[in-house]
């Protein structure tokens, strides 16, 4: 008995000891699961991706469910539904927007940018809820808008909410919105690379190691979730494509030109219509979406394809479903319908309509070209596919994303050359005739001055070679004696500064006064290497001028040396040289001094993503 008790006691004791050890291990530090903010940020990126993926899955289901309920399950809804549902949907959406979710109007991309650059990364969670409900209703009722832009903002909103809950620092909170945006967009497109590129191209504007890893992680997580729940199908079933003859690239170049014209028309319409509708009395905001819905319904009676996001119509166009005349008509009326929907303040995105219009324009151009050149081997479907990228490049002006988006949604690498040709042409023409990109235009219409990523990309960068000058004083060498050096600089001014080169490619500097002082201490025979202290930072001619400015510090001048031979002096640079170069560039451009004089990195509130300081609102 005693033995049994002892055994039992021993066993109990061991269990308790184990439990104590576990508790002790768990309490080794005051916060057992605390993480450094950088690591937490990466973990958070994955969590954001998961949340965004799940919400986007629900969002897509909500859109489909709404469409079936409002427009019916048939591909072509009945005329009664076509006429009434966009109007009713517009009315309800307008009330929701005006009364409950005023922030959901407009572009989700710009709202995310505003969160980053104006509101310290804050996107109210009500915006997420509002976007979800109003966009599902608008798109589901047949308004010509897409789910990608709202998905992007849903992702950004979730990220912002999580970041605030976890009390991230302001810097990290600003970074978190783009991370969520990438996750939302990746989930919507089922295309992580395009989403990452888009966020880099349009939201944060540059590759930054600090944020890139988080963006990639969140995009991948969200795509994994979407694929898990909705399947890994590509967005479109792509026709077989093979570029047989190089001369056929000319045909795709023509598509680039036509695509650019279509993009310009689309931007110009939005540029004209949206401000006019925004200027109308406030009460009209309640009926504008309904009025837009009525017009879309009228168009939809003959062309029901223009209603909604239109992915199935894109798919049909890629499978030669329509003749080129019909494709051209669909492109034209989709531009009208989307402009009406968007300009009326109905929440929703422009990505899907852009893809739609691009596919139609591409198919139409392909059809015409096939008519006149029956020897072309690319199918009309292939032109439709390339057209999607072309409009992306010309209208949304995201050249990198436009190329990768086509590759990613098609899963066909052989299409890359035609896509690059067509997209580049469309982008350049659009840039030439519409200097302000769509997102910048919308931002200015909304009264904000968000940093223009395109302008930053197109900015001519000032470099060291633009500011440096030839050395005016003799160069000294570290192996020279003080006396020798002094004898060589006799004719120089008393306050002159001389660069001293070392054998190992390092540089230093010494003043004439210092040389004279050393000589007076009877150190005329001493070598300069033993006299001069410290080393100067080196510059190279191709380095951006703002790098030189950063290195300049308190130094009066810096050596500019050859990259392959550090002892070879190409020039010298002083603070006056740098300021002079910026002034000259400012005078030459006649543009906003911010962009030219002070690059983004050096703006008063610089941060990792290179944004401008919050201002205005």
């Amino acid at each position: 008995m005693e033995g049994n008790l002892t055994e039992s006691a021993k066993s109990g004791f061991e269990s308790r000891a184990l439990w104590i050890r576990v508790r002790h291990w768990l309490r080794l530090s005051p916060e057992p699961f605390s993480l450094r903010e950088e690591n937490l940020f990466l973990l958070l990126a994955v969590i954001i991706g998961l949340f965004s993926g799940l919400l986007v899955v629900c969002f897509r289901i909500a859109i489909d469910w709404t469409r079936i309920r409002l427009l019916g399950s048939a591909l072509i809804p009945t005329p009664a539904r076509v006429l009434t549902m966009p109007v009713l949907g517009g009315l309800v959406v307008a009330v929701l927007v005006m009364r409950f979710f005023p922030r959901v109007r407009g572009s989700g991309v710009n709202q995310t940018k505003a969160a980053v650059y104006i509101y310290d990364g804050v996107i109210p969670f009500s915006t997420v809820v509002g976007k979800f409900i109003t966009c599902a209703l608008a798109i589901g009722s047949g308004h010509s808008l897409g789910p990608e832009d709202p998905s992007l903002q849903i992702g950004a909103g979730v990220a912002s909410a999580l970041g605030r809950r976890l009390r991230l620092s302001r810097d990290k909170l600003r970074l978190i919105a783009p991370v969520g945006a990438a996750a939302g967009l990746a989930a919507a497109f089922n295309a992580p690379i395009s989403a990452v590129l888009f966020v880099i191209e349009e939201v944060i504007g540059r590759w930054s190691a600090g944020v890139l890893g988080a963006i990639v992680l969140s995009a991948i997580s969200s795509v994994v979730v979407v694929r898990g729940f909705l399947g890994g199908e590509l967005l479109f079933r792509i026709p077989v494509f093979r570029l047989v003859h190089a001369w056929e690239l000319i045909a795709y170049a023509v598509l680039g030109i036509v695509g650019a014209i279509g993009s310009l028309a689309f931007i110009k319409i939005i540029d004209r219509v949206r401000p006019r509708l925004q200027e109308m009395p406030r009460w009209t905001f309640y009926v504008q979406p309904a009025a837009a819905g009525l017009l879309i319904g009228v168009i939809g009676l003959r062309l029901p394809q223009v209603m909604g996001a239109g992915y199935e119509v894109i798919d049909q166009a890629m499978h030669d479903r329509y003749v080129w005349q019909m494709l051209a008509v669909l492109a034209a009326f989709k531009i009208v319908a989307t402009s009406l929907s968007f300009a009326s303040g109905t929440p929703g995105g422009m990505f899907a309509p852009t893809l739609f219009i691009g596919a139609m324009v591409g198919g139409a151009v392909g059809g015409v070209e096939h008519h006149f050149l029956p020897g072309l081997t690319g199918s009309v479907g292939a032109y439709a596919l390339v057209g999607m990228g072309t409009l992306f490049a010309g209208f949304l002006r995201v050249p990198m994303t436009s190329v990768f988006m086509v590759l990613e949604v098609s899963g066909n690498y052989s299409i890359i050359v035609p896509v690059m040709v067509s997209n580049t042409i469309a982008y350049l023409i659009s840039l030439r005739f519409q200097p302000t990109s769509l997102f910048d235009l919308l931002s200015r219409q909304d009264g904000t001055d968000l940093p223009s990523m395109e302008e930053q990309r197109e900015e001519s960068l000032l470099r060291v070679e633009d500011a440096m000058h030839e050395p005016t004083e003799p160069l000294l060498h570290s192996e020279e004696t003080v006396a020798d050096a002094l004898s060589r600089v006799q004719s120089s001014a008393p306050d002159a500064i001389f660069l001293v080169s070392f054998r190992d490619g390092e540089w230093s500097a010494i003043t004439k006064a210092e040389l004279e002082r050393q000589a007076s201490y009877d150190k005329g025979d001493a070598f300069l290497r033993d006299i001069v202290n410290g080393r100067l930072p080196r510059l190279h001619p191709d380095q951006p001028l703002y790098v030189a400015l950063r290195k300049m510090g308190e130094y009066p001048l810096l050596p500019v040396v050859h990259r392959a031979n550090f002892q070879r002096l190409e020039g010298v640079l002083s603070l006056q040289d740098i300021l002079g170069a910026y002034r000259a560039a400012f005078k030459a451009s006649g543009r906003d001094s911010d962009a030219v004089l002070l690059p983004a990195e050096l703006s008063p509130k610089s941060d990792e993503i290179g944004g401008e300081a919050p201002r205005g609102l």
Partner: protein
Amino acid sequence: MLVASFALLGVLFAFTGFVTQRYHATQRALAQRWYIRGEADLQSGQPEKAIEDLETALVYVPGNNVYRLRLAEALEAAQRLDEAQAYLLSLWSDEPSNGEVNLDLGRLAARAGSIPEALRYYHNAIYGIWSDNPEQASRNARLELCQALFARKDTRDAEAELIALAGDLPEDADLHVRVGNMFLAASDFDRALRQFQRALALSPRLEAALFGAGQACFELARYEAARPYLERALRWNRGNTQAARLLETTSLILEIDPFSGRLSAEERSSRVVRAYEQAMDRLESCAQSRGDQLETTSPQTPLEKAYAQALELRPKMRESILRRDPDLTTAALDAVVEAEKVSAVACGAPTGLDHAILLAAQRHGGGEPD
């Protein structure tokens, strides 16, 4: 807070899982409903409506290859061949060895007259993967390829396919008859006869096989064998006018052929004289119909020359003389064949006994077309 986030994530996962499950079930049900409607429209010969229905079905289950294939077939039925081809090519890129997809692509290529492409797709179909009854599907694909080749008058390729097909046919009399008829169309009468005989071994009273065998024997100039087949075919189907005509010609050949086995000298001479008289009548009626004069001192036209040649033999065209001089029989038959051939050129294809005379001559190496 992190723990709370994970908990919320778990809840959201569960909720999304539930919603997605319901969503997929609804999508599948809607897709199935529209697919059934599309099938019905397709069956009732309304391909345009079927296309709309099937496209709707595909909105709900975009990756369903069965729906996509049926849509392609509906497009094909509606003569929207480019669209059908685009869909099929996209399906083909997913499943390059799918027999059904390759067969449809082969059909389209054949319709477009692109024979090398059609051959490629048909062969892919023949050796491809079929979900149901692969042997039969593969055989049907080859039969269809043969038909497509015949339609393009490419009998050489068709015959090659038929030979491959014939080597692996199941015991099915109708199928043997079908293949036999194709061999007939390819002028491969030996193989055709073998197929009909295999069919008759399985179903001795099959009229199509009897008629086919009769035709094959006739084409092989085996008139003695052809007659019983044709007679039996007519016995089962008296309305077969083709068989009746063939039997009539066969009987005439067997009645007029002077070189048939086991003929007495009297009978042979009698047949030569009869053939000679028939040929002279044919020459004269032909000349009369053309308004030509055959009796001339210097024959110029082929008709006149043939008539002059035959006329020289007239005094010797008696059975008693022919019996004594076998060389005269040969010379007489040469003149007969020449007269029939010339008449055929001048006045059109021979009929009845004239046709029988030519066929009998061809059987023994004479009267071959020049």
